[in-house]
């Protein structure tokens, strides 16, 4: 059982990281272009 917890944790952490990559990338696409004042 503890192996199950550790492996599921590992298995969840990396897909979440990939979602985070996607979110950071999309943030740029969704922003209107323009310089800071």
């Amino acid at each position: 059982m503890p192996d199950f917890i550790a492996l599921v944790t590992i298995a969840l952490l990396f897909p979440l990281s990939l979602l985070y990559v996607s979110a950071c990338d999309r943030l740029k696409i969704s922003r209107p272009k323009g310089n800071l004042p």
Partner: protein
Amino acid sequence: MSLNGWLQITLFIALILLLAKPMGSYMTRVFERRHTWLDPVLVPCERLLYKLTGIDPEEEMRWTQYAIAMLVFSAATLVLTYAIERLQHFLPLNPQHLAAVAPDLAFNTAVSFTTNTNWQSYTPESTMSYLTQMLGLATHNFWSAAVGLALAIAFIRGIARREMKTLGNFWVDLTRGTLWILLPISIVFAVVLTSQGVIQNFHPYTAAKLVQPQTVTGSDGKTTTVTTQTIAQGPVASQEAIKMLGTNGGGFFNANSAHPFENPTPLSNFLQLLSIFLIPAGLTVTLGTMVGSPKHGWAVLAAMTILWFCGVFVCYWAEAQPNPLMHNVDQHASLTQSGGNMEGKEVRFGIANSALFATVTTDASCGAVNSMHDSFTPLGGLVPLTNIMLGEIVFGGVGAGLYGMLVFVVIAVFIAGLMVGRTPEYLGKKIEAYDVQMAMLYLLIFPLIILGFAAVAVLMPNLGLSALTNHGPHGLSEILYAYSSATGNNGSAFAGLSANTHWYNYSLGFAMFFGRFMMIIPMLAIAGNLAGKKIVPETAGTFPVTTPLFTVLLTSVIVIVGALTFFPALSLGPILEHLLLHAGHTF
């Protein structure tokens, strides 16, 4: 403080500054795939590796592809390490017949070494087999350092390139960093360490008969007579070299670089110190060369050196002070005693080299220790804690220090732009909203993880507080240090915390994971965004990033951001402990 101590500290930094240029120039050649004298041997190895793994070395990657490749590599090596730990009792090179590592500890350790943290909640010599130490842990010392190097080079390319969408090839950077930089230096360094007495063998542990048997009373009140001592052995030198060079820090033995088999002499200590800063210092020269502004690299190196000096001065001064509670004892330095606070320090290193080591190991994300930070005076212990909380950008970890510093550079030029009322520029590239958003994400995730987990640990007596061996402000410092060390991927500890519990193994594991990857991704996003930008011609209004003014601004931004974020927590920990110590209270 003594003249001898300051001479050694001065010699150390002088050598680092002298070595920065040749090291940086060599790394530039390696990552720009120019000719080096190791090519005849290593190019065939490199080609063979690409052929076996099906990698096209000419393929360029966008920042997202680079990040995904890094995550896939880290996930695969993490699972491999977890499996080795859990199965070590079935595997060879286990002469002590050590049992499988417990699942929560195996998870913590696998994350720890994958993220270049090397936090160790266990006693290595009684927990890990030789195979686990070599194949599971020492290999990660190479891989995680090579990943850091690759990421720093990707960030530099982001600054140097113009109107491009790509940052290079992760697999090529990883391979070249390992083959050309980490492996050759580690091999030579390991041989030098063995000349100083660092051991390298596969012998079973030695049982030595005590000349004077010791009578020991256990915590249960039972008295036993000890007649033998077990002396741990193992392949130490090969792990020690990359432990320091790769700013990993995980010791073969529990006492780490305070153990005489890991760090036997003052010379081995000095070389270990040099190896921690060697690559991070060189990377500033690589930065200057690759972006076409060598002076910018020197300006960044100057900021790092200023912050390093402030840390080592305070730490050395604090540790050289007499203990105020022992005012009736002679504590002055003399020919027969070190003076100051020698608790938790090795006599062969003394106060100067212990303070220097503590400062250097936490400036970088190394985490190796040659003295026990938990035994430092409150202000002496404040220095390593603060170094970690500043983000370990003072030279910093291999690669991680430079890209962390460059995020601060982005913030510094942004603030400079705000002050003069124009769009900030960095080496001809406009710093826009997205860059600042990602930089702020990078900077905010760090304290959020540290303070969030520390707050939860403090609020839960059964989980967080029960592991403490000291209470009051020192106990808070221990918890703060643990989460700072984990999130900053440092790995050193205020060792009064008994962290091998389910709560600490998992929560510190999460802190290490998020502290590594959740910060790398916004950093790569900035690099990817910068790579696509045009170069704007320099004008009279451009803020130069090559001058002493820039160095002062950068240093100030780092100190102010660090101070504003962590000062309240520090004031309840080491600062309060210092004040209470002078009022006669200890913890």
